[in-house]
């Protein structure tokens, strides 16, 4: 089995993934930018847009490009898997072993990948049509609790923090958009619009969340997750849509990044079967997510993710080896 994905489903998967990843990073994982988080998302989008333009137009394929990209997507997927596990632990009253909580998400992603890339992408496409309806319902029912005053001071922790957050966002975008480097069909778009759109959606979601919960000076990961899922005002009947939005969003993100990692692995080791690559990626993500160092990754390593992948992309382009790039046949 060869892991393949067409351009259209890849774009849908990347869009769903980037909105979820930026929201996870800016609101739950590392809310260091406070009220300025939405600006960080937009800055991240603007930083990552040229990279997106380059890979969609020139489509580099060399090992120098594929190997770091796949590895980076794998490490980021492990962070997402860790978030899924902690969220499941929160909902399961913390009475289940973390491995038990990890495995269902890993198996679901594996099953999805074994249906190949278009299944991952089209599932995300369906999700991008369902999620806004769910979100609209939740937002309308909570409308009277939104407090725009809580978005001020508008720059939150200030420009240095916003820019640092923007660089981190660019790193998360690269991981979420790794899947866009995989399509080999003729249809290809030399555009950076999906990145900007994804960043814009994430910025909007961040603004909505900060209008429900005021800028906090403390609180741990689970506290922030609690504030996200029920935010202290949501009646019990509203918590299900919020939980569905959170878990389904994370699941599509996980499937997207794991598929990118598996497909990159198969591009490097062409003799490996796609199903085996997917299995290896899931196993590695599970193993990585259980390593404590990942909690530090969200803050520290993500700052360098964009710079590292951007550099290898440029080096790959400059190397110009045979098969290093595939020109677009047409664009829409």
């Amino acid at each position, binding site marked *: 089995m060869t892991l393949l994905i067409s351009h259209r489903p890849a774009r849908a998967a990347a869009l769903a993934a980037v909105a979820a990843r930026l929201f996870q990073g800016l609101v739950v994982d590392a809310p260091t930018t406070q009220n300025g988080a939405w600006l960080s998302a937009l800055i991240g989008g603007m930083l990552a847009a040229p990279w997106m333009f380059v890979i969609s137009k020139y489509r580099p394929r060399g090992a120098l490009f594929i190997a770091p990209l796949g590895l980076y997507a794998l490490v980021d997927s492990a962070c997402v898997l860790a978030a899924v596990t902690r969220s499941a632990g929160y909902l399961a009253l913390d009475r289940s072993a973390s491995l038990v909580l990890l495995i269902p998400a890993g198996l679901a992603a594996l099953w999805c990948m074994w249906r190949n890339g278009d299944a991952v992408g089209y599932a995300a496409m369906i999700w991008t049509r369902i999620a806004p309806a769910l979100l609209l319902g939740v937002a309308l029912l909570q409308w009277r609790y939104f407090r725009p005053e809580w978005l001020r001071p508008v720059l939150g922790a200030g420009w240095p923090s916003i820019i640092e957050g923007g660089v981190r966002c660019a790193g998360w975008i690269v991981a979420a958009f790794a899947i866009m480097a995989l399509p080999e069909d003729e249809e290809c778009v030399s555009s950076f619009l999906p990145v900007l759109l994804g960043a814009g959606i994430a910025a909007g979601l961040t603004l909505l969340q900060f209008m429900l*919960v005021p*800028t906090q000076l403390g609180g741990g990961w689970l506290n922030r997750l609690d504030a996200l899922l029920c935010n202290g005002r949501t*009646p019990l009947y509203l918590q299900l849509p919020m939980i569905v939005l959170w878990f389904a969003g994370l699941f599509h993100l996980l499937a997207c990044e794991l598929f990118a990692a598996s497909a990159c692995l198969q591009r490097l080791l062409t003799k490996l079967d796609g199903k085996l690559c997917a299995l290896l990626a899931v196993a590695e993500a599970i193993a990585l997510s259980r390593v404590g160092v990942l909690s530090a990754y969200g803050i520290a390593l993500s700052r360098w993710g964009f710079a590292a992948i951007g550099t290898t992309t440029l080096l790959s382009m400059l190397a110009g080896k045979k098969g290093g790039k595939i020109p677009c046949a047409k664009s829409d």
Partner: protein
Amino acid sequence: MRKIGLIALLACAALLLCGCGVSGEVENQAYVLVLGVDRLDDGQLELTARIPKIGKSKAGESGEGGGDYLTFSASGGDYPQALDALEQATPRQMNLSHIELLVASEALAREADFATLVSQIAETPHLYTTARFVVCEGRARDFIEAQETVIGTRLSSEINAMLEHYAQRGTIPDARFADAHYLLGSVYGDPVAILGATARPAESPALSLIGPSSPTEGVSSPMGQRFFGSALFREGRMVGALDARQSMLMNLIRGDVRAIPFECDGRSYTLTVEGRVKREVRLEDGGMALRVTVRLSTLDDVCNEDAARLEDDLEIALRDVINECQRVGAEPFGFAERAAGHFTTLDAWRAFDWRAKYAQAQVETEVSIRNPA
């Protein structure tokens, strides 16, 4: 055929939605409706839980439905220990996801590290933080034990309907525990809580908190509890209280109430809020001015002179409420959020020293009343 099989398979998967672990039967759960926190004389923290019995009690077993609810208490050195002891004391799996009311005794709320306790409670897994937040005079346990169903048959709906009613009248704030938790740790204003007391004779200090013109004074009620005002917080602890009338005016400034009764020259008027109540903060040379603009209407007969007097009286009453809060250093009105808008970063906002300036701020109120008839 294959698609039909797949649909049938997915439909069967819905059977797994109840989970694949040990099922949580309703009868195996102890749903806590009210949770109270007290500080005992020996320094221990006491938790009290009001839990409904599953099914109806037998005839004659309960008086006014009181037998349908049980009260459990347990104490410990700190909150985690007390919660653990309470779980041990409760003969079923304690479920905190349906709490309607969180009650803290006033003595505890006035302790310096009360904010830490609020955070610990809020971070309890699956505790329903949307519950209303009450500070009660005396012991929280006595307050909770006095709680019975009076009009309704279920305590949960009784609590909700009762507090919604009082909040709509404006005599108490619509204070949620989550709001208290968020505001205690935020950079904005201060939270408020509902003030309550166990029902006692009319001469009790609790009832004397209600202003002389309060419509609840001298009322006879079978209720075992009274809710009559707001508890004010500053820097994580309770620092003062507003009576029912002051709470009504506070709710008017916050924009949480649509109509209030107001007395002037021995006559009572019903005033309805027109549009939004405007709260502004002006930063002046080193100081600050707070301004409230309220537009009201009334269907009562009111001549121009009466309207002018009514406006003056209400302006003074609003200023008095703000001044009272300034005196104790509490800011429940939402001025801080507006003042924060003058700054671009949190550091600049913190450096502004809002609290010191708020205490000294000039207060301006503008009330206009018209009779559309």
